[in-house]
């Protein structure tokens, strides 16, 4: 994240970071929790924190990638100028499938988001696997 979505940003570095994050998300699927305890279970805590950190990192990196301008602390060496014409708006990041994407109001579609949305579509499948895995932990007896 420091390399690809840090102080000075450009497309190749951010692409690389987004790719790394996809790999990390993929690896996260292989996580095994040994500790089934309900008291002070730092193993589950660390896994959940990693899960959420990957969420935030993916949202930051993919959003930075599609914002092809510089604004505030978002400094892109490949787009040094602010571009109100195209980017005077918030970026909203969703995990989408093709189906949910069609349901989003058109105003939620970032004009430059096509590439990013494709990335997030791929992640949605992995996400549902994760959610079912998390439900498994919750349904298992604790001791």
């Amino acid at each position, binding site marked *: 994240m420091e390399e690809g979505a840090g102080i000075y940003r450009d497309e190749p570095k951010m692409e690389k970071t987004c790719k790394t994050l996809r790999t990390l998300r993929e690896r996260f699927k292989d996580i095994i929790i*040994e*500790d089934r*305890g309900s008291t*002070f279970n*730092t*193993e589950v805590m660390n896994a959940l924190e990693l899960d959420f950190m990957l969420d935030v990192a993916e949202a930051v990196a993919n959003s930075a990638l599609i914002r092809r301008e510089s604004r505030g602390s978002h400094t892109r060496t490949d787009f040094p100028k602010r571009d109100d014409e195209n980017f005077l708006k918030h970026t909203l990041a969703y995990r989408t499938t093709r189906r949910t994407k069609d349901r989003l109001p058109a105003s939620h579609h970032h004009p430059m988001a096509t590439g990013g949305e494709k990335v997030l579509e791929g992640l949605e499948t992995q996400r549902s696997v994760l959610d079912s895995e998390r439900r498994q932990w919750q349904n298992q007896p604790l001791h």
Partner: protein
Amino acid sequence: MAEPTITLNVTRYRPGQDQVPTTQAYAVPYKEDWVVLDALNHIKDQMDGTLSYRWSCRMGAYAVAAA
């Protein structure tokens, strides 16, 4: 030559599971530059994920006042 190891006797208590605290022995690599926390982290990462512990060193939080 095999890597030198050292045995760490860890007193453990898991509420709801253990009636009384018990001692568990772990053989960890012996490294000159390791502190106890390095050994505990090694156990949790590589040997036994159920070992839980708290620490406050190496947090880089000097001069931080907690509210």
